[in-house]
Every structure is written in C-alpha cells, then in structure tokens.
C-alpha cells in the first residue's frame, strides 16, 4: 500500500518541520517528504489524500490512559479503547497499571501487549506499577517490567505515600532508564470528593484542599533534586503545582509533567449541579488554576497533554456524588478541546501543541514516535482546526460515556489517523 498526502501543513518539532509538505507513505513507513511531489499518474498511488487547509501532526501520543484490561472489561477493553483513541487522533497510547490483576509483573505486561496486537488498532504501550499491588510497600520487579515492554512505572490512582519507597523507586528505576510517573496526592488531605472552595462550601460536598496535590509535588521535586534523577508528575491541576515545577526547572531539577484537557477546559463550577461526569481525581479547580495551567503549557513548564482517559460504567456514575467513580472518558474529546481552547481561544501555536501531544510524550516513554521523518513509522494525525463539531457521547467508540463535555460545541476535529501506514480513521470515520 502507498499513499500520497498532498498540500497539508506539517508540524513536526522533532524534525524541525513546519510548513507545507507532501508526504508519501509506503507500507508502514514514511518514504518521502517534499515541498511538492508532482503526480505523474494517479495509478502510482493506492490513495491520494487532499490535505489542503489541514494540519499534519506526528501521530498523537497519549502518555496516560486507562484501558481497563485486564479485569474491568465492562468499562473498556483493548478493542473499544484503541478504537476510541484512534477516533480521537491518537496513534500511540500508554495505559496505566491499575488493572485486576495489577500490572506489577511481566505476565500482565505481556498479556496487555499480546492482546493489543490482536485487538488493538493503535500502538499500546503498558506502564507498570511502581510497587507490588499498587500498595506503596514493596518495589515491583521494575527490571522485568521494562524487559517485558513496560515504558514507564506509576502507581497511578494511588500515591506512593512513603517518601522512602518513592526515593528507592527513583534510584532503582534509573538503572533501567525507565520513567517514574508520580500520582501526587497526600492521603491525609484527600478525604473528599471535589476541590475545597466556594463550590464545595455551596454544594456541601466534602472538599479536598489543593495542598493535597501540591505537598506531594513539592516532595517529588525535593527527591528529584536530591538524587539528581528524573521524575514525571502526572495530571497537574493546580496553580501552585505549576509554579513549584516552574521554579524547580529553573534551578535544574530534572522534572517533567503533564496535564489533561479537563484542567484547562473546566473549573470546579462544573460540579455545582452534582454532575458526576465532572468528578475526577485530582479534582477540578478554580479559574485561576485553569489559567495557570494554560500558561504552564504555553511557557514550557508543562511538557505534555495526556487524556487520563478513565472510562466508567454508567452505573458507577449515576449514583450519589460521593459514591460516584472518579474519571473522565477522554480519548474522543482531547484534541478538540486542545485545538478549541489552547489554539483558538488562547493562541497557543499548533507547533507547540505538536510538542505537547506528540514529541514530548514520546520522549518521556522512549518509544521512538512523535516525529515525522523519512524512514520513520508512518504514524500521522491530520486535523481540521476550523471544523466545528458538537460532542455527542452516544457516538463514542469507547464503551463508556462519562464525559462532562456532552453537547459542547468545539472547533477542531480529527479527520485522519494513520497508524503504521494503515488508515484507521478516514474523513473522521473509523474504517
């Protein structure tokens, strides 16, 4: 199979490409990138995509999602999860280890990789657990996880409460050159179900002070500086976290971090009417936090956007707020939210968005993706930044529908997702 993509605007910070280029894909690779490729005969190509007015990104990479396999296939499985990812423009995704059984051993990692080869339509990279059973007590067999194919380690969903264990995890992981991803949550402050502030006071929902996240962000920065080893902070949601990380980076601390679209799209006000679809951990914060997140994305403090795609069955959301599960179904709204809010509303350049959604997450996970270059695997996402679309959860490919963005009109949509030379999404439709 070979394709020609004509007249698209290519954005690939990893290879310093920014401009109008034609691209030829042959089999699974990028064969040619040139300013103008003249078509001698249409028969030379199996397909020609006219990308006039469209932007070609290195296939988006999601460094943080939940595929719920094994153990919670009633929420999502590899097939539905990867279809949802492809529809949303992601060509590579990294799934968190809070499955049942937990991905704290090579067997589960291999299982996820094998199932993904069979059932998946995008590249799936599992993340292993930092500690056995995500319990924060004993280190997992991090070396074995790495050799089985894990691209990072995290106890996501749970913090590593004990700083001594976290320190050992960072030291031990450094031998294997695998990223340590920290879910920051000080448990003695996290007994609540939303951000503590005016909205928690007015709804009577128990608040979680933003210090809950910030205290552990500060701890990880101190550990990273002390050890001179890297650490990656998951789902940053507060202004002070952004500030702490910005200052740490300035003094040379080897920290990277991520945020999610809901932290720059929503505030705690989304919970005024007890909407459980906006219940997420860490909880949505205030407008000042939202603005700080956008500034952090703009100025390089925040390195990447991840979905934290967290599908849940409707019965886990359609209950009393306090009992509802945390999490937002994120694959199929992330790109639209990013283009609409960051690019259109806040003028964050698309080239920066390519760093945030393609290049930087690939570097974090060392997966050799996120760059458009001749000879590389042909993972591409083609976006129409002008097309408006109304989010409709009933059309989600994901098994779950827990999105607070249902009914929201957003500008920016994914038209093509190409994974290893295979066209998975064509003209916005999953093939």
């Amino acid at each position, binding site marked *: 199979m070979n394709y020609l993509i004509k007249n698209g605007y290519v954005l690939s910070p990893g290879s310093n490409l920014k401009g109008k280029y034609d691209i030829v894909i042959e089999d699974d690779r990028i064969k040619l990138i040139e300013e103008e490729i003249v078509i001698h005969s249409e028969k030379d190509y199996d397909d020609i995509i006219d990308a006039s007015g469209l932007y070609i990104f290195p296939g988006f990479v999601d460094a943080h999602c939940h595929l719920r396999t094994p153990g919670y296939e009633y929420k999502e499985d590899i097939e539905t999860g990867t279809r949802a990812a492809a529809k949303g423009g992601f060509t590579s995704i990294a799934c968190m280890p809070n499955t049942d059984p937990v991905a704290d051993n090579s067997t589960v990692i291999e299982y996820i990789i094998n199932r993904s080869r069979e059932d998946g339509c995008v590249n799936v990279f599992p993340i292993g657990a930092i500690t056995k059973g995500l319990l924060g007590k004993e280190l997992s067999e991090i070396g074995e996880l790495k050799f089985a194919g894990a691209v990072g380690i995290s106890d996501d969903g749970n913090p590593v409460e004990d700083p001594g264990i976290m320190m050992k995890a960072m030291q031990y992981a450094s031998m294997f050159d695998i990223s340590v991803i920290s879910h920051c949550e000080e448990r003695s402050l996290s007994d609540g179900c939303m951000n*503590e*502030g*005016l909205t*928690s*006071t*007015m*709804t*009577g*929902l*128990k*608040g979680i*002070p933003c210090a809950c996240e910030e205290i552990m962000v500060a701890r990880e920065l101190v550990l990273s500086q002390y050890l001179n080893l890297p650490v990656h902070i998951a789902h940053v949601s507060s202004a002070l976290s952004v500030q702490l990380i910005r200052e740490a980076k300035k003094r040379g601390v080897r920290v990277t971090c991520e945020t999610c679209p809901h932290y720059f799209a929503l505030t705690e006000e989304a919970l005024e*009417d*007890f909407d459980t679809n906006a219940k997420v951990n860490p909880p949505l914060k205030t407008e000042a936090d939202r603005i700080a997140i956008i500034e952090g994305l703009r100025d390089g403090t925040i390195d990447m956007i991840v979905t934290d795609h967290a599908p849940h069955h409707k019965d886990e959301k*359609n*209950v*009393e*707020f*306090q*009992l509802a599960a945390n999490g937002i179904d994120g694959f199929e709204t992330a790109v639209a939210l990013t283009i609409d809010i960051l690019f259109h509303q806040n003028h964050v350049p698309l080239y920066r968005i390519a760093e945030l959604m393609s290049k930087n997450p690939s570097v974090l996970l060392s997966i050799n993706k996120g760059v458009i270059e001749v000879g590389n695997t042909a993972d591409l996402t083609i976006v129409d930044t002008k097309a408006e679309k109304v989010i409709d959860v009933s059309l989600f490919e994901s098994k779950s529908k827990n999105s607070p963005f249902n009914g929201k009109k957003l500008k920016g949509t994914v038209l093509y997702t190409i994974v290893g030379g295979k066209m998975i999404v064509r003209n916005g439709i999953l093939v």
Partner: protein
Amino acid sequence: MNMELRSKDLLGIKYLSGEEIEYILDTADTMNLILDSGNKKTPHLQGRSVVTLFYENSTRTRMSFELAGKYLGANCSNIAVASSSIAKGETLIDTVKTLDMMSTDVLIIRHSMAGAPNLAARNFSASVINAGDGINEHPTQALLDVYTLRKRFRDLKGIKIAIVGDILHSRVARSNIYALKKLGADISIAGPATLIPRDIEMLGIKVFNTVQEAIIDAQAIIALRIQLERQAGAFIPSIREYFRFFGIDDYRLKLADENVLIMHPGPVNRGIELTSDIIDGSRSLINEQVRNGVAVRMALLYLLTRRKMK
C-alpha cells in the same frame, strides 16, 4: 398574592427566589390558623400520598412532615430504611423509581450525602422535598427559622443575625445563610477556625473567630448543634474548650441587642451550645420554631401539590 413555585421540587434554598420564600411564608400564616383551630383536618391534600424516606435518624423533622401531611388530609407513609430493600443493597435511584411507580405525590427524603435529593428528583416524576442532605441543605429548617424571625421582625431587611458554632458540618447554617441573604438580613457567623468552610465569606457574610465579635448588637442568634458524632476528625480539642470559647451564656449575651432572640435547630446539647437558662428563658424561640415547622411544611406540601394539579 397568587404565584406558583417554579420547581416541582424543593431541593435547596439556593434554588428559590426571595419572592418564592415570602410566598411560602405567607402561606404558612394561613396554615398556622388551621393549627390554632380545634379541627386540625383540612381537605387540601385529600387523596394525595406523601412518603418520607429517611436514611438518617430524625425525630422532629420526620414527625413534623408526617403531621403536616395528615393535618392536610394526605395519606402519609414512612419507609423504615433499616427494614426495607435498601438494606438489601437497592440503589437510591431504584428505590425512588419504585416509589414513583406507586404514584407517590410527594417524596420527602433525608440522606447523609449531599446532592442525593437532586439525584432522586431527576428520577422521580412528582415532587421531592429535601429534608436534609449531608452538609448541603436543610431547606425546610431554614424556612421555619426565617418564618419564626419574620413573625417577630415583620421585615428581615437589615436585621442583624449571628450564626454560631459548627458551620462546616451544618446544612442548617447553609440553608439559613441563603434564606436570610435573600430576605436582606445582615449575617455574621462565628465558630472554631477548623469548622468554618473555605471561602464562605464570598457569600456576602461576615466571618469571625470569636463569638463575642459575631454577636455584638445581634438581634437574633442561631446557635448550631455541635455534632458530637462528627468530631472524630479532631476539629476541636474538647467540648469543654468549645463551651469556654463559643458557648453562649448570659454574660456573653450582654454584647447582643437587649431584645436578642435565641434560636437553635435542635436537638440541643444543653450546656454546650447554650446554657440551660438561655434555652428555657424568655428570649428563646426554640419551642416556637418546632410549632412553626409544622405550619411551614403544610404550606410547602400544599403549594407543591397544588402546582402539580394544574
């Protein structure tokens, strides 16, 4: 005045307008006449069914609703949560849908979790009344409190009111703040710093950490119950220390207006929030609050079911 409540439910004071509150209170005046008469049985709710579904303990609120319904001629039933299918693990939504299918006209719900009545109302075609949800709202308590105050002051505009105690865990405080603000009162609150919810001053009230400052010139004081069962989180070091710094006695009361009135949603911890002398004294409206509670709930039942008939 003849108007109609906008919502089929009463989920919280924050959803009511000032006019709606006044309208409910005016209707309660009429209901008080019925309570005064020897024959406490009217046909206002004849043929209607009222169900109380209380997931938390209650004496006065549940009984007050039940009597309010009965005085208006309704069929009142109570679900004993402990012996119902809820004990078998039935979800709130399924319970509520079942009651809806049995053509309940008014469902009165008390629940330990904030927002539970909102969830119930979305799954119930007739009216839902919130009888207290977690630490969110207790709208009928606030209505009876402002009704009691309005009987004394006629107009609450500019009246100085202090609310004292565990504001954080108090749905009564929240509902009262919304109601009193909507009627124009001037509100001060005081309580231990650990029991003041964050950003509450943004509601347009004054917040103090001493009871003395809050009650200066107060024309009414609402003392809140210290919820002994909620103090496990080390919010205050001891009840003794609480009384020393926040308890209201005759000495402190001298700071307030000379005609100050004392209210308490009950049940009272004697000698903790208020001294017994104050509870039983002439300034206390605590017993009147209970009586007015029935009138206000009659008014609500009447207004919500009348709305439905149209």
